[in-house]
């Protein structure tokens, strides 16, 4: 360094000029204290003396300032600052802002209407095969209409959720040139030396927020899962009327049950969103992984129970309307409650429960990022339910629901399903 003694302009510099900058009024004669006061936030936030050194360098301090503070170099000064300034606890991070309650209700109602309208129209038009096929198209769009999992939170594609700012700082701050890409900007062009920004890198480049991750990526495959999931939902809701179209069963009861189930698609969506919100809340506040799992243990049963309760209320209401409009021929005994409950046989009630599970479990899984399993589960449920062997259909649907439940129970309790 001795060779490079910079030529200073003789007497031109102002005598009072002070490299450290503003003098703190009332400061003592300790120059370190001055630096400390000026860079207090940097020192309080630093995790390492080297971070302070980098920050001081960036703020324009140099070896001369370190010498003024009686240190050999900036690193030593930074060590003293790190030792003297206490680390201040970071401000507590508030709960992760989830989606608003209003939005949850709006989406749930929209889903219910979207699912119920085609079913009602198909039932009203007689339930022929062309009508059912036509009704399947809007039904298949229901999961897509409720929004991708990435719309409110992160996509469950872990590589996207966090990104390292390897490049140091983003933007042209890294490259020290005004503009010229030809000569000065070769750091950007070459992939060469140092921490240049990489323009080709896409979404991973900007780091996302802490827990929910960066949720700006919706990749093309997601749409595909949504379509499969939608096909499954359509199959689940349209299989019973298609099967009973020519069969011996009471078509009106089937229609009532299907309408109730279609309306409950809204409640499935609501439950899934509620589950996710609760999970994210716990994720923001839980201290250990074990504690998080313990907290999440009762949440899945609660979400399922909520959905099933809504479904049974809706089913009961639909059957009550049916009973009021078209009473069963012959003398009835018992009150309305009894009549309504008897309107569907136990097998139909059980089938309704299985249908409810097959609606809510894929919704939960898709909301928590397991889109593939969700779509396959919904599709498998639909295929099994639509099997032309009625005695097999019920238990097989139950088996699919059980398999989904067994899969979902550990997966949805894990923290990485909620980021």
């Amino acid at each position, binding site marked *: 360094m001795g060779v490079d003694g910079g030529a200073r302009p003789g007497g031109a510099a102002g005598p009072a000029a002070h490299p450290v900058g503003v003098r703190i009024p009332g400061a003592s004669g300790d120059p370190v204290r001055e630096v400390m006061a000026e860079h207090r936030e940097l020192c309080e936030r630093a995790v390492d003396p080297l971070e302070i050194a980098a920050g001081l360098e960036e703020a324009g301090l140099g070896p001369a300032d370190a010498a003024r503070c009686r240190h050999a170099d900036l690193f030593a000064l930074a060590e003293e600052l790190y030792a003297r300034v206490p680390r201040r606890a970071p401000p507590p991070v508030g709960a992760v802002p989830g989606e608003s309650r209003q939005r949850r209700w709006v989406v749930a109602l929209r889903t219910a209407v979207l699912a119920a309208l085609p079913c009602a129209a198909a039932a009203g038009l007689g339930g022929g095969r062309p009508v059912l096929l036509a009704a399947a198209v809007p039904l298949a769009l229901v999961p897509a209409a409720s929004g991708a999992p990435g719309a409110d939170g992160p996509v469950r594609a872990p590589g996207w959720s966090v990104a390292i700012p390897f490049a140091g700082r983003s933007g042209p701050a890294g490259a*020290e040139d005004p503009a010229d890409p030809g000569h000065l900007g070769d750091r950007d062009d070459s992939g060469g030396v140092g921490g240049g920004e990489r323009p080709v*890198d896409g979404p991973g480049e900007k780091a996302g927020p802490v*827990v929910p991750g960066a949720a700006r990526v919706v990749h093309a495959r997601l749409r595909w899962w949504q379509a499969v999931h939608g096909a499954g939902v359509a199959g689940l809701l349209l299989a019973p009327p298609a099967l009973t179209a020519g069969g011996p069963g009471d078509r009106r009861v089937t229609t009532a049950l299907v309408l109730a189930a279609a309306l409950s698609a809204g409640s499935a969506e609501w439950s899934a969103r509620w589950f996710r919100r609760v999970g994210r809340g716990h994720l923001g506040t839980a201290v250990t992984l074990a504690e998080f799992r313990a907290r999440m243990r009762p949440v899945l049963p609660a979400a399922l129970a909520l959905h099933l309760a809504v479904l049974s209320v809706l089913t009961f209401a639909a059957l009550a309307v049916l009973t009021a409009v078209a009473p069963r021929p012959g003398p009835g005994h018992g009150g309305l409650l009894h009549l309504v409950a008897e309107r569907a046989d136990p097998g139909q009630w059980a089938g309704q429960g299985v249908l409810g599970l097959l609606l809510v479990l894929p919704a939960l899984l898709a909301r928590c990022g397991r889109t593939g399993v969700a779509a396959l589960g919904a599709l498998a449920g639909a295929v099994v339910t639509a099997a032309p062997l009625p005695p097999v259909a019920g238990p097989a649907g139950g088996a699919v629901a059980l398999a989904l439940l067994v899969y979902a129970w550990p997966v949805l309790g894990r923290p990485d399903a909620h980021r």
Partner: protein
Amino acid sequence: MRVALLTEGVRPRAGSGAGGWCDRLVEGLREHDFEWYVSAGTAGPGAGEDPHGRWSGVHEQALRGRRRTGRAPGALRGRQYARAYEQLVRALLRPDERSSFGAGLYRLAGLAREDGGLPAFLVSARARGVLERVWRSPGADTSAGQPLVRDVLVAADLLEQCLRPLAAPWYGTGPGGIGAADLCHVVGGGPAALPALVAKQLHGVPFVVTEHGPHLREQYLGYREAPYLRPVRALLLAFFRALAEETYRQAAVLTPGSAHDRRWQLRCGADPERTRVVYEGTPAVDRPAAGPEPELPTLVWAGALEPGRDPELALHAFALVRADLPQARLVVHGEETVPGYRAHCEAVAARLGVAEAVEFAGRPRSAARAWADGSVVLFSALSQRGPRLLADAMLSGRAVVSTDVGVAREVVGPTGLLVPPRDPRALAGACLALLRDGERRARLGLAGRLRAQERFAVEPVVGAFREIYLELVSQWPAYPAADGAPGAPGGPRPRPFARPAEYWLTGRGGGAGAGGGAVVVGAAGDRADTGSAGGGSADLGAKDVGATDLGAADVGSVGAGSRAAGPGTEGTPAAEGAGEASGRPGALAEAV
């Protein structure tokens, strides 16, 4: 010889043209074969292509994006993975176990090379569990705060991304493997150095590290604005610090881009003996000097419009200049990187009453034109981390006034005026002194141009690395496998100092510049004369080719012994370092 060039960053693109640092190096060293190993951001179309056709091979691995995890390790292997990972994490979190970072890293790399289960392990719940257990155990450094579940999740993800190069399919001595290369050249440090560290451990390939702006410093600056909570930041920065220290310890030669960067490397444990400054060459040295000065006395300022570049200081100084020299003008080149900052600067100029004499010219068409707009070039930045912009301004032949920060002193030196930062009076005084004295201006401008041409030309860089490469391979033991000859069934047998430096030049490179080759042979011969240790032992080794390794009971034997163990066992880093330090033949002069 075969050089594996390891970088992190953009993949080679067809549109980028020549002009990159690596491209210039490869262009200059045509006698060597270069393979490029890129740890790119995200994999995408065009991966692994070589748009220029200069490289023997381009290999790419994504650091971000979707993981292809593959098969998870079994129960027993999983336990081994967990132990190695725990060792690594403990080195990051417990101040008393810092030294075990390298051991944990190499254990993980060895396991990954055996069964390829590392990516699946790193994303598993088991890895998270290990991380949390160590992090919350007594004795862990949690001065940045106790970690919560979300911190563990995010930190585990980030560590996984950082450790991806360990599982790259690059290792091995087959075609395209790093192990088959004669040396590695890491450009940029950071995660790009991981493959070089592993290759040194597994295959004994030495490596050079070139850093223009230490990666670690960039991380410290970058993470200040990253949206991670403090425990995560502390863990990740601890990882980068440990990685930098291990890299500097293991590197055969470090070539920082400036003496300013060198100080950072020395601080992080680099050996001053093995650290040489090699300035970044720029093709702009061939550019003619700027034409005649503008008629009115004009100051030109260029850079990104942001607070760190401190254009406000330039405006304040210019107001003082204009008070003494009313016909002076200021041209500000550059685009704003902080939204609204340009408007802020314009408001400052208006408040100072100099708005009509200040021109915000925006992005210049070329840097040379920007400098030609003024009679004096003005730098008012609070920090100068890289020399490139200063050097480019000096190459224009205009006199330079700069704040005395960062690399300014070593780059500008006595050929320009240096003033303290944040001092408009000093800056204005310097500008006035130059604006009033045309003869001094011209003298300083010419001196600056000559100084920059001397320091930042491309040929010295190429020459420096030519020497460094030769020096490395001549003192490193040679494998028969590196020659392409299939060795004995017992694997490659090391023959330390079996080949003199000249070996690496004969029959290679064809007719790629006979003149350059001759120069190199001369240089190598010189060193063989002066460096008696290296040359002498090389001759010995060449004579008893069939002898066992015991014959080489010279300075290189320690390093040779640990390298002889080869893949599978772990040589002690300290022993290797000692061998390589003592085997160094005669100190070379500073590269530039």
